[in-house]
């Protein structure tokens, strides 16, 4: 194990290299670009034996990966924001064709208005594409999760693609020490891909072509079953990773000081780090608060959320995106998972940190205060500068 100082982007690149990917195809977009720049460098210097396919768009990048994966190759791509939106059609193809592509996503706000800063709307709006989705808190977690994602995605019972998302700039361009596993250990953890369900050029078949109503539902149901299988297999994959590489990924919803908590905040990505230090500060002041990190959004860890609900604490879900006309996407999922809980805990949807706005310890404190002391609205835009009541045409346009 070598300790290196890596950005989140490079943690993705080195994870792909350790996974011995056969094919990389990607199109540059800030703040993802340095992932594939590094991979291009590794390929051209011979450090990684892979096909690096240059393409004209993200749509083609994912198409190249899906096609390679359909033939049994281990394929990796990375993108962000508008690029992920452009891939949307192919996201559905990838899961429907059961191609276990792994993709790094640099979570960046989507236009309009234009922004390059952190926000989860890009990947959260891909919720229903059949992809497994992980959200990382640190660069170490980025590297470990990419490797675990390949293993989970490629399992014969799963064969679904995964995206490993990380916050723009906070992770993508911030360097921190990362333990890079030995290649031999990764090889033991991640053997070459099974050929089950892959195409054979010597026995031509059509994959994903026109399907009548007689069969379509069953293929969709197969994706649903595979997604369920991914949730069931994930603990085994993580145990294997811990046994071989020596790090525990913590499951889909790692908890921090939740057992006796009166209020629990559910966070995703780097906001977790801020929230954890705020929990420590509040605990020192005698406030019983806790934290749960939503590491995996799809398949959604409903059972783990129900277990969290059984603590009896009030639960706030901090989303860095918004589902218009509803609430934060993670919040609606948490609420849905707890619907049948008895007693059903109070759940609030907090929206903050959009388009790179900083999620500060003071903001996190205000969320816990809101949970502990108020019966306020179900959805709170916690860091909004203009209160909605004052956002009149007069206020906006003078």
């Amino acid at each position, binding site marked *: 194990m070598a300790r290196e100082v890596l950005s989140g982007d490079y943690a993705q690149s080195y994870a792909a290299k350790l996974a011995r990917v056969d094919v990389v195809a990607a199109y540059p977009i800030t703040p993802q670009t340095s992932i594939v720049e590094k991979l291009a460098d590794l390929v051209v210097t011979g450090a990684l034996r892979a096909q690096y396919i240059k393409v004209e768009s993200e749509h083609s990048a994912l198409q190249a990966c899906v096609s390679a994966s359909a033939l049994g190759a281990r394929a990796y791509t990375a993108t962000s924001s508008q690029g992920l939106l452009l891939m949307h059609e192919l996201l559905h193809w990838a899961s429907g*064709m059961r191609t276990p592509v792994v993709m790094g996503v640099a979570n960046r706000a989507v236009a309009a208005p234009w922004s390059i800063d952190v926000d989860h709307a890009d990947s959260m709006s891909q919720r229903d594409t059949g992809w497994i989705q992980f959200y990382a808190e640190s660069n170490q977690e980025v590297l470990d999760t990419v490797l675990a994602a390949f293993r989970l995605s490629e399992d014969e019972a799963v064969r679904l693609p995964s995206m490993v998302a990380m916050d723009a700039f906070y992770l993508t361009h911030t360097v921190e020490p990362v333990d890079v596993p030995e290649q031999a250990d990764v090889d033991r953890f991640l053997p070459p891909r099974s050929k*089950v*369900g892959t195409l054979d050029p010597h*026995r031509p*078949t*059509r*994959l994903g*072509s026109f399907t009548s109503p007689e069969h379509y539902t069953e*293929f969709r149901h*197969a994706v649903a079953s595979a997604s369920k299988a991914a949730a069931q297999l994930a603990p085994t994959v993580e145990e294997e990773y811990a046994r071989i590489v020596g790090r525990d990924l913590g499951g889909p919803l790692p908890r921090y000081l939740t057992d006796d908590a009166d209020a629990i905040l559910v966070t995703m990505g780097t906001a977790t780090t801020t929230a954890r230090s705020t929990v420590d500060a509040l605990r020192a002041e005698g406030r019983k608060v806790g934290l749960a990190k939503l590491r995996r959004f799809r398949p959604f860890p409903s059972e783990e959320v129900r277990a969290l609900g059984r603590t009896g604490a009030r639960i706030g879900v901090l989303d860095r995106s918004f589902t218009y006309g509803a609430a934060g996407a993670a919040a609606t999922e948490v609420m849905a998972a707890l619907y049948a809980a008895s007693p059903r805990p109070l759940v609030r949807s907090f929206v903050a940190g959009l388009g790179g706005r900083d999620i500060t310890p003071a903001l996190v404190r205000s969320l816990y205060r809101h949970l502990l002391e108020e019966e306020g609205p179900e959805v709170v835009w916690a860091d909004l500068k203009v209160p909605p009541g004052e956002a009149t045409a007069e206020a906006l346009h003078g």
Partner: protein
Amino acid sequence: MTAGLASPLPPPIDTPLATVPSDTLTTASWRTFRPVIDRGLCTRCNLCWKFCPDIALELDAEGYPVLREAFCKGCGICAVECPPKAIVMEKEV
């Protein structure tokens, strides 16, 4: 679930693989207009063949375009692209 199995190793039942060649499935019965090719005007430039988005034109031994009626949707791109205007779109009856 998998249509038309002929492969010695059947694909997994949850993968949408089919072994029936796509040219056995006709896809253009609903066409409204059909391209009609005037071989007298055709210069065999093959632009129609290149532009056809559905590989519904093939070239005969002399290099003239021949319509594959089972696949042509009648989009008319060939007629628009044809430099000598040797292709006209005629309404199906």
